[in-house]
């Protein structure tokens, strides 16, 4: 393999050419819509640019400005809070329901469809608009609380509760990780549980000693994917909580990038924030991968 032949036969040449011919759609897109934009945004992060006049080089000013921007830190806080609450909740629901549905009983297919249904529409504006009314002052949640005698809560107006409307919306959409867990559960050999039953293991120890370790690769996969997804949530914060209200407590990161870049036309500042997000996501992913060696496959503890 180390030896490379420089003289190519015509047939080999045509194979190489046809390879590039077939990957050409992606390859062109990679350069035009990914590589060049990402390099451009790296350059933009060090400039001031309003799209009307030429970009002005400002060095690291954008990054220094981030440190002193209280709205920026509000968006960091909101995003971290959102990710750390919504993603574990979503995964716990996903796993619990997957275990419930891991059964050969009749009708399980229908239940699965019903549990999955919120996930196929959950990202839409239609559902975001609906969610706003579910948690409205006169909305569904308050109405149901009133039936039980709990006084109504102004969910969307209260800085302490507003973010929870977004978290519940995210947790509600546990369908995809649920299906992935379900596929993983089906892979666990029944003989393991039978052997454990003979040894007198209870349901709890079966879960911690068999299910969780056997599922850990799937859990890891879901955790990485969902965490990345959590960091880039946008539509919900724009619509459900109306641009990150109240008091920027639901100003998710990407929403703030959008506001700065496209509403205030501060493209340079926006690009700098986007780059920081990229680095943070890369670091979090790297940490998750790093940690995986200690809990995927071997340990029974859930990764944190």
């Amino acid at each position: 393999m180390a030896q490379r032949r420089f003289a190519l036969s015509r047939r080999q040449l045509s194979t190489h050419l046809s390879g590039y011919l077939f990957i050409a759609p992606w390859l062109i897109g990679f350069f035009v819509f990914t590589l060049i934009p990402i390099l451009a945004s790296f350059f933009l992060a060090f400039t001031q640019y309003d799209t009307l006049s030429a970009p002005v080089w400002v060095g690291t000013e954008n990054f220094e400005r981030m440190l002193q921007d209280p709205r920026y830190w509000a968006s960091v806080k909101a995003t971290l809070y959102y990710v750390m609450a919504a993603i574990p909740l979503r995964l716990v629901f996903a796993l619990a329901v997957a275990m419930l549905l891991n059964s050969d009983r009749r009708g399980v297919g229908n239940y699965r469809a019903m549990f999955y249904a919120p996930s196929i529409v959950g990202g839409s504006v239609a559902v975001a608009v609906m969610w706003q009314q579910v948690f409205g002052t006169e909305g569904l949640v308050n109405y149901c609380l009133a039936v039980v005698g709990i006084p109504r809560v102004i969910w969307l107006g209260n800085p302490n509760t507003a973010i929870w409307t977004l978290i519940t919306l995210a947790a509600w959409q546990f369908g995809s990780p649920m299906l992935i867990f379900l596929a993983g559960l089906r892979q666990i050999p029944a003989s393991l549980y039978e052997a454990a039953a003979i040894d007198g293991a209870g349901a709890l120890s079966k879960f911690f000693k068999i299910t969780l370790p056997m599922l850990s690769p799937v859990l890891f996969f879901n955790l990485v994917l969902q965490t990345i997804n959590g960091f880039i949530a946008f539509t919900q914060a724009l619509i459900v909580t109306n641009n990150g209200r109240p008091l920027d407590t639901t100003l998710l990161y990407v929403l703030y990038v959008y506001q700065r870049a496209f509403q205030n036309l501060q493209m340079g500042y926006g690009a700098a924030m986007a780059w920081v997000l990229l680095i943070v996501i890369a670091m979090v992913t790297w940490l998750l991968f790093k940690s995986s060696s200690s809990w995927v496959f071997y340990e029974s503890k859930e990764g944190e």
Partner: protein
Amino acid sequence: MAAITVPGLRVSNASQRKAIVKSIAYHAPTLILSLLMIYPILWMFASSFKVPAEIWKDVSSLIPKQPTLDNYFKGWAGFGGVRFDTFYINSFIYAGGATLFQVISSAITAFGFARIRFFGRNFWFTCMLLTLMLPVQVLIIPQYIMFKQLGWINTYLPLLVPRLCGSAFFIFMIMQFIRGLPKELDEAARIDGCGTIGIFFRIILPLIQPAMITAAIFTFYWTWEDFMGPLLYLGNPKMYTLSLALRGFADPGTGTDWGAIFAMASLSLVPVFAIFVFFQRYLVQGISTTGLTGG
């Protein structure tokens, strides 16, 4: 919930009763929980048939007391002088075009990566895998500037043209599918005088249809529900997709006829649920085998 009697096996009354109890113990909570999950969606559908006064009065009810289609007529009239069918057609143009472009270009690229051994393949493949991890949100600013300079703002071009370049996710998914097909098929076709292009169109393309359908469903969903793209590039209400229109509808500034909003929101979800009902098999398979996530 009849107990199943197995022929040739005498089931005692007690164990039969036990099976029924067990079955109820499973089905009752599962059914209640699953109904609770879809309750908000049902609630919105039901509310869209209620008279305005009823929506916020008998909030939790799923059965309208005086069912009416008024909300649908009012909603269909649209806003800003644009009728709702325009938004519907726009959404179909965007989602339909994007799906067609993306699935075809992804299939072509997937074949190149999966079946042709060309110089630099591993390098480009690694590049593609890296872009899988890249959140597109990081690219919106430079892409916007590029499209603005091309004069593409307020057209569908920024939304559709990039789809001609496929998507790393679906390229990867279709690749996995192609890898599962026996290589002997290609070799046999080559012996019969089929070229690489012929192998793709005549042998592989017909066989990867299930993967392409899965990719098509997800692309359709994601573009149908896409909000950020249209928000950035479409400024003219005549070009609005359903996402933008619904947001315009529900804007606190424009007044709030919730009946009409719920009616149009419900209508916007009809294609999504229709596809779900007819293609559920592909959806479940797609997610379980490749870990696609919806949103």
